């Protein structure tokens, strides 16, 4: 199987879907000649032209508003935010229009749009360009939130997101763009709302997503040599959340750690714990559920402080050890 990067996987998904469906188009800032802030749309302008690779002025409100309107009249727009942080400028068309239209028009209108957005820290982009705002988006009924962790998942999930009749926020992690993974040639989809066990284990369930999946996997492989068996459950889709997979895994391992980069307070780790608490998995818990999340601070510019603000492999390792050894 060929190995390609996460960026290429997203590029391929958009390209293949635009070739397959002429209603699909890309809209955003600097996505044409420049190829997009992170180079995802490189070369697309030449193939599809400015009608379908639609560059806009610097207005996220305009991008998402136009995409929502186009979707309502039958197009399948893919809107690109240069940084996830800028979705805040487009919250009104996203939250008040796109998320509500299908409901308010009794299903007569659908809004099949995707908003792609690079999130997360680690690039020295400081407090306004490094946030993980998934929980903000997850709080809105009518929006699906997808956060792939591998090239394979990114392509399969993006195809499903484009074909989904609802607004989907597709959260890409900046640090993952260069990460390679095996991706088969040709079309395949991964259904939204289905989690994936990236590493099976019996002692503890680590529920995570995005960049933290790879970090958790590295820790799991290291601890496996010591006889600690951690199951890494990649949610892949944050909303709708695969509650069944969470409770099945916790029933098997009896312990839970939730890891996400987004800040802890109000983060979705709490949601995962609530799922376990109110499912039959509760009676299988043999330790307090724990979460490891970003510190409740803006992402610092200083690279050491930036690293310290979000969970790193050493943190995940220490936390898993403590839980498995009944330290809590």
């Amino acid at each position, binding site marked *: 199987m060929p190995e390609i990067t996460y960026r290429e996987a997203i590029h391929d998904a958009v390209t293949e879907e635009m070739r397959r469906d002429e209603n699909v188009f890309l809209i955003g800032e600097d996505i044409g000649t420049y190829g997009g802030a992170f180079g995802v749309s490189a070369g697309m302008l030449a193939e599809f032209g400015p009608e379908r690779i639609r560059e806009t002025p610097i207005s996220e409100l305009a991008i998402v508003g136009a995409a929502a309107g186009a979707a309502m009249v039958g197009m399948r727009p893919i809107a690109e935010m240069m940084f996830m942080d800028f979705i805040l400028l487009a919250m009104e068309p996203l939250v008040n229009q796109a998320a509500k239209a299908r409901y308010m028009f009794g299903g007569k209108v659908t809004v099949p749009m995707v908003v792609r957005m690079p999130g997360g820290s680690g690039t020295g982009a400081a407090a306004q360009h490094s946030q993980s705002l998934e929980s903000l988006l997850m709080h809105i009924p009518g929006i699906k939130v997808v956060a792939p962790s591998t090239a394979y998942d990114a392509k399969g999930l993006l195809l499903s997101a484009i074909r989904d009749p609802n607004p989907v926020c597709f959260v890409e992690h900046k640090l993952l763009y260069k990460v390679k993974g095996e991706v088969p040639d040709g079309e395949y989809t991964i259904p939204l709302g289905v989690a994936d066990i990236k590493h099976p284990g019996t002692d503890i369930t680590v529920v995570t997503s995005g960049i933290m999946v790879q970090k958790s996997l590295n820790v799991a492989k290291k601890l496996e040599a010591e006889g600690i068996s951690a199951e890494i459950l990649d949610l892949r889709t944050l909303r709708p959340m695969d509650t069944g997979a969470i409770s099945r895994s916790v029933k098997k391992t009896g312990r839970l750690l939730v890891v996400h980069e987004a800040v802890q307070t109000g983060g979705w780790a709490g949601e995962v714990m609530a799922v376990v608490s109110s499912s039959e998995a509760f009676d299988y818990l043999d330790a307090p559920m724990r979460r490891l999340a970003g510190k409740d601070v803006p992402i610092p510019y200083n690279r050491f402080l930036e690293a310290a603000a979000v969970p790193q492999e050493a943190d995940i390792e220490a936390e898993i050890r403590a839980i498995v050894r*009944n330290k809590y």
Partner: protein
Amino acid sequence: MPTPFIMPKMDMDQEVVTIMSWLKKEGDRIEKGEPVIEVETDKIASEIEAPESGILANILYHENEEAPVTKVVAYILKEGETLEDIPAEKEKPVATAVVVEENADELVEKKGITFATPLAEKMAADLNIEISEIPGSSGKVTRKDIEAYATQIKDQVKPRVETPATPAARRLAEESGVTIDNIIGTGPNQRVQAVDVISASAQAVAPRPIRVQPEAGTQVPLIGKRKRTAERLTSSYQETPHIYLSVDVDMTRAESTRKRINVIADNNGDSPVSMTSYLIKVVAWALKRHPYLNSKLGDNNIVLLKDINIGVATAVDDGLIVPVIHEANLLSIQDINERLRYLSKQAREGSLEAGEVSGGTFTISNLGMYGIHSFTAIINPPQSAILAVGGLVRKPIVVDEQDTIEVRPMITLTLGADHRIVDGAVAAMFLSDLVMGLESPEIMLYQGF
């Protein structure tokens, strides 16, 4: 105002009680009806119940002190009350018998009727509260009273102290039938983990190791009646030199006489006379002739008692109680039988009154119904003797000079006597007369009761 805890008067001529022990300390919460003081009169030991719920305070008479009856011995503080609320000590006039007109409040008190508003009644029903338990602040129980009471009982509910355990451990314990409270967990603060339950249930099926030291099971507190029984029997056994004499009695004629008596009883619609009742009558007759067996040891004398009051040791759920048939020698067998039936019933229900268990001069203990052939008993001080009665057994015995053997209904009587008062010959003569009364009932008619 705090509720005064008044020492009740249990007997007509009683002036003081000795406080044996306070079952609660100052500051303890006590509930209405709960035993709080163990007292002893010259007749019996009793437990005095709390007249009201609250906090026990200001104990005025301590253990081993004599307390006057009808007087305050402590106070009970209700919520919000402090020691300051206790009135300055003064002689409280003892309620005398004055006829007063009954008003509604007294009706409530006397007849146990509680008036309540319809809303209060509904609230009480919803909260599953017995409305008669609630003190009405204004003669009537109102919503406010119910709310106050509900808050009060809520405060009394103590937080459950639980063995810490993870949900998984609890589930496994339930599935494997292991009691989680018996496990000391390996988790933080000895929290029971799943693995602890698994190893505990593995041990449960493993062959049980031999325990060198006996394992303590339920612990029965040695208090109240049990404690008094223990103390009295220990002192009697240590201080009284017991002698024991046994005799076998042919009960053929006693039994046939009793059967004929029961034909009469049946015709009169009375209950059939029991063997014990019959025995009491004959023992009373024999005691009349042998006053040393019906006496007590004074400081410098032996007091031969005029009344013959026979106690019958009776096993009840929580120990032993000895109801007394007073002046048994003056009663007919039928009266004795009725009295004994009544007292046994009271004993079983735990509602014997002080006068019904005091004043005994001699005790009969019968274990025949348990198949006991013969046994010895410890004298119940200050009495001088006790008769232990075995079960009626049909046995072959030699009945005449020609060595004829016949099967006869036999019992074995064992007399325990205080040798300081009763010599062996005196005890033997008493037993001899008792045997004669049982084997030849006509002697009693001939000699008179």
